[in-house]
């Protein structure tokens, strides 16, 4: 029989201290970027009503949510997404037409993922939402902030893909087909299934001109200028024209940040277009097969909660980012160590504790223990120096060099405070 008490469920994991430190460091870099752009940190509850996520035309399927039942029989879900709760929260501020709300978050998301045997069911996402600004400048800022996040983690080999949801929506208006067929066409374009897209368009009862546009949809990717050039001849109506113009404007903003070398365009990015209303972002790292960032403009979401406020944002999957960085050898795996272990016999405990306090006040990491346990500290690899406090002078042993010297308390403290050497990574 399997003893479940020793196991953890599939898709979740313990975070050990060395990994935790790396993660904290990366999150703190990312948060620094968000703060520098004027975003303020918020947090929404870990669980909320199921209805909240059902109401919005969401990117999350029903069977992807972890459900709980509360004492009244209401269905709750573990936070399957954070943008929806933030939209709810933003609406609670009332009509903010003349205001802007800039939020950032770094929190865990829970999702049931049946398809892949080893994807995470709990992962950390860090991101920003810019609510109350419908201009291309806001979209450009979101994209620039995402790029700054990657750069802040010393990642240079990455790519941001820009899409525009309204371009395809405009195209759909020209084709008189039912929802099932749209879904199928969308799916084929999304999968760049060039051959089958052509097959479908041939069967559609539309003009040759429209057929040509459908056939070209999966090819509209790559260098921004090249795609804009190709797409301008494919515009069929005002909606498509506006969407293309908007995408060009967003690209223009990104150019003003001098980040255009990181950006490419794909007008076939249409998997979540029920939800996105404008520009769509996807972030990839070279040689890492999964997207690490995604986002876009979602002007309709906040209105679900009573106020029509435009919004745009993006989120970075921190766990995927770390995994990719490990592969790229960008992770400094040095874990933090203890500067001093002060070992005392019971008579001198008070003295040892007093010295420890002084050291800690100087910012050092100090552990104290009974002298009988010396062996433990000699063996441990994360201890730098061992200080023995007994009847005689202090005895200071540097484990790395093997040097040992004796001195008074004052001499020791002076030496520590004068030492320029950085003892440990804190």
């Amino acid at each position: 029989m399997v003893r479940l008490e020793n196991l953890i469920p599939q898709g979740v994991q313990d975070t050990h201290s060395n990994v935790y430190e790396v993660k904290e460091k990366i999150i703190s870099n990312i948060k620094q970027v968000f703060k520098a752009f004027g975003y303020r940190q918020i947090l929404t509850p870990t669980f909320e009503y199921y209805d909240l996520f059902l109401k919005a035309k969401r990117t999350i399927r029903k069977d992807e949510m972890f459900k709980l039942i509360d004492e009244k029989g209401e269905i709750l879900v573990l936070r399957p997404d954070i943008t929806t709760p933030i939209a709810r929260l933003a609406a609670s501020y009332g009509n903010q037409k003349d205001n802007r709300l800039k939020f950032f978050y770094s929190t865990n998301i829970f999702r049931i993922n049946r398809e892949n045997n080893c994807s995470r069911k709990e992962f950390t996402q860090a991101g920003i939402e810019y609510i109350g600004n419908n201009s291309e400048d806001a979209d450009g800022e979101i994209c620039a902030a995402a790029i700054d996040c990657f750069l802040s983690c010393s990642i240079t080999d990455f790519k941001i893909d820009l899409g525009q949801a309204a371009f395809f929506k405009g195209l759909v208006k020209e084709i008189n087909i039912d929802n099932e067929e749209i879904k199928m066409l969308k799916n084929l374009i999304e999968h760049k299934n060039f051959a089958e897209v052509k097959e479908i368009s041939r069967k559609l009862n539309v003009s040759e001109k429209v057929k040509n546009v459908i056939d070209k949809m999966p090819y509209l990717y790559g260098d921004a200028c090249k795609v804009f050039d190709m797409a301008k001849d494919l515009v069929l109506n005002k909606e498509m024209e506006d969407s293309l113009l908007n995408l060009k404007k967003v690209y223009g903003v990104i150019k003003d940040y001098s980040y255009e070398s990181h950006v490419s365009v794909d007008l076939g990015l249409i998997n979540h277009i029920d939800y996105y209303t404008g520009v769509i972002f996807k972030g990839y790292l070279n040689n890492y097969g999964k997207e690490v960032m995604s986002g876009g403009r979602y002007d309709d979401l906040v209105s679900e909660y009573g106020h029509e406020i435009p919004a745009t944002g993006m989120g970075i999957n921190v766990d995927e980012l770390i995994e990719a960085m490990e592969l790229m050898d960008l992770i400094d795996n040095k874990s933090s160590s203890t500067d001093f272990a002060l070992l005392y016999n019971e008579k001198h405990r008070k003295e040892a504790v007093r010295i420890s306090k002084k050291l800690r006040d100087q910012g050092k990491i100090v552990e104290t223990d009974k002298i009988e346990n010396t062996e433990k500290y000699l063996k441990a690899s994360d201890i730098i120096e061992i200080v023995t406090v007994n009847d005689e002078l202090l005895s200071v042993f540097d484990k790395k060099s093997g040097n040992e010297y004796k001195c008074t308390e004052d001499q020791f403290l002076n030496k520590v405070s004068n030492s320029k050497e950085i003892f440990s990574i804190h």
Partner: protein
Amino acid sequence: MDKIVIAAAKGRLAEEGIRLLDLSGIKFPDYSKKSRKLVFKSEDGNIELVMVKPGDVPVYVERGTCDVGIVGKDVLMENRANLYEILDLGFGKCRMITAATKDISLNRGKKLRVATKYPKMAKDYFNSKGEMIDIIKLNGSVELAPVMGLSDIIVDIVETGKTLKENGLYIVDTICDLSARLVVNKVSFKTKTETIEKIVKSVEAILGKEREINIENN
């Protein structure tokens, strides 16, 4: 040049795929049909080919362990992997069908017992027909199920239909046509665009040539 890893579905699809790649200038000198090796390097060392079980190709490609895959459409439909399905390679042609030993009237108010290796496809197909079914997942020799009375009908792939005939089954309906596909990891397609486009284009050119020859011969 970017390094590219190709996953090929072990067996006939891999053989055909390697032949196509060879014609388009990507040669794997170590490869022979009899070889038991699972990893082959191209002449210039930039392309690596790995042999995996057909059902595992989408897994390798979707997770980015491999950039490109050669795999049957049946596997893609059953797995519904999130990847780019760039090319119809034209070989490995077959059909997904339903077959039974006797006349099957649909919508008869009783649940139909369906034996198959492709439970997702079977479910989708009968759902679209409004038919209530119970699925019996088998791992091979599906034709046996209706003969032995294990199921009323099967969902399976056929090439010629010979096996069906010999076992006293006839085709009830064709669900769809199938063939081998060239699939690409979504991120690789974006980060190694040039290299992958080059491979795709040269394979496409060869496919075009072969198609012309076929038309002429016919």
